[in-house]
C-alpha cells in the first residue's frame, strides 16, 4: 500500500489527482492482489521443483517490473499520456503496464506462506489468519512510513529504488524460507 501512495505521486503530474485517478489505481491494486492470490495458491500446491520454479518466476517478474518502474516509470507515463486522449484509457494502460505485474507477483507469496505454515503443522485457518494479519500490519506500517517519513524527505525516484532494494532483499529471504528440499516430494 505504501507503493500505492508512491504510484499516485507518479500518476498525478500526468493525469491529475481526480477521483478517476484513484479509482483506476485502487482497482488495479485490488485486481493485482486478487490475481496474485489465486496464482500464489496455485503455485503453493505444485510439487516442490515446479513450485520452486514458480517462486523464482514470481521473484524475477517482481524485481524486473519494479526496476522498470524505478528506471523508466516517468518516461513510460509520458509516452502513455501522449498516446491516449481519453484519460481513463491512459490510466488503464498506465496502471496495468506499470503497477499491475509487480503487485501481482508480490501478492502471490501470501498463499505460499500460508501453505508453508500449514505444511508444518499450523492449522490452515490459523496459518491464514497469521499471514494476512501480519501482511495487513505490514501494509499499515508501509503506508505510515511512506506518508509521514519517506515522501516528506526523499524524492519519489529515490523511494522507487529503495522499494526495489527492499523487494529484492525480502524476496530472497522469503524464497530461502519457503524452499522445500526436492527429496521431500
Amino acid at each position, binding site marked *: 500500500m505504501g507503493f500505492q501512495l508512491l504510484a499516485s505521486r507518479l500518476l498525478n*503530474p500526468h493525469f491529475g489527482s481526480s477521483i478517476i485517478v484513484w479509482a483506476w489505481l485502487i482497482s488495479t491494486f485490488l485486481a493485482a492482489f486478487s490475481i496474485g492470490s489465486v496464482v500464489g495458491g496455485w503455485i503453493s500446491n505444485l510439487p516442490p521443483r515446479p513450485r520452486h520454479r514458480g517462486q523464482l518466476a514470481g521473484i524475477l517478474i517482481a524485481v524486473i517490473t519494479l526496476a522498470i518502474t524505478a528506471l523508466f516509470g516517468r518516461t513510460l507515463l509520458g509516452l502513455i499520456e501522449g498516446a491516449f486522449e481519453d484519460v481513463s484509457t491512459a490510466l488503464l494502460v498506465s496502471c496495468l503496464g506499470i503497477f499491475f505485474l509487480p503487485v501481482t507477483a508480490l501478492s502471490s507469496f501470501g498463499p505460499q506462506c500460508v501453505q508453508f505454515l500449514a505444511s508444518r503443522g499450523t492449522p490452515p485457518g490459523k496459518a491464514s489468519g497469521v499471514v494476512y494479519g501480519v501482511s495487513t500490519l505490514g501494509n499499515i506500517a508501509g503506508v505510515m512510513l511512506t506518508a509521514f517519513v519517506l515522501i*516528506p524527505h526523499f524524492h*519519489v525516484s529515490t523511494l522507487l529504488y529503495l522499494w526495489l532494494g527492499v523487494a529484492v532483499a525480502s524476496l530472497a529471504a522469503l524464497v530461502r524460507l519457503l524452499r522445500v528440499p526436492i527429496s521431500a516430494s
Partner: protein
Amino acid sequence: MKIIRCCLGVTLFSANLIAADFVETYDTIYNSLTVERRGDLVELRARARGSEALESAVDLSDPLKLVVPYTRSLFGALFFQPKPQRVLMIGLGGAGFHRLFTAAYPDALLQTVELDPKVFELCQTRMEFKSTAKTPVALVDGRMFVKRDKQSWDWLILDAFRGGFVPPHLKTEEFYRECAARLSERGVFVSNLHATSELYYSDVKTLQAVFPQVVLLGVDGRGNVIACAVKYRTPVITDASQWPEVAALANPVFTGRLDLVALRREQIPIPTGRMRSARVLSDDFAPVEFLDALKSNNSDRKK
C-alpha cells in the same frame, strides 16, 4: 377575498423563502463545503482540519464587489499586463473575481478550470454566477487542461484549493514550466499562496526557479500572498516605481471596488533569508501537505 389573501400569503412566504438566510453543507467528491447566506452576502467555505476556510464570497446586492480581500490582489496582474484579453483561471470557487473582471473587460475571454462539478453547480445556483461564452468553465483537472490546451494566455491565475491546500501536482517546477509555456509574450502567471507555513518559502523558491522575475503582493491580515511572475528578464517588473501609472489602468467599474493605489503599495520583499533552507518542489519531490503542516511565524514577510 379570503382566497386572494391566502394566495398573497403563499406568494410572500415563497419570496421570503427564496431570499432567506441559509446554511447548507455539502460533501462533494473532492471537498466538504459550507454555503452560507446572510442577507445579501453568500459565502463558500471549505471545511478542513477542524475549521472552515473562506474560499469565496459574493455580495448579491453588488456582485462586482470584491468581498474576499485576496481577490482584489489578483488584479495586481494589471501592473504587468495591463490589457488582458485572454485569461485562464484554475479554480472557480464562488467566481468572486470573475464578475468585476468581466465588467471591466467585457471583450476579454476568462476561461475557468474547476475540478469539482458541485462547486460549479453551487456557484451558479447559490452565488448567482452565470457562465457565458466569454466566461466558459471546464470541469477538469487544472494541470490536465494546461497540458492539453495549447492556447496562450495573458494572465494565468492559479487559485485551486482543495480543503485548504493546493494539490501537490499544481505546485511543482514542472507544472510552472508548463504554465510558462502557455503565457503570451508579456503574459503574467499569478498564484495565490498562503504565507502561514513553511510551504510558502518552497513555493516562492519554486516560482523563482522557473520565472526570471517574481513579485509578491501581501494581502493584509489574511496570510495570503499573491505572486505575480513573468518569463522575461526585461523590462524589470520588480521595481514598483517602474509599474504603469494607476490612472492608465483605471476603469469606471473599479471605482469604490478596487483601489489600485493601495494595491500598488502591497508589494512585499522576497523572503530570501527563509528561502535558503527551502527546497524547490518538483514532480519528484513535493511534500506539500507536510510543509503546509509546519507553521511559520512569517517574521520576515513584512517590509
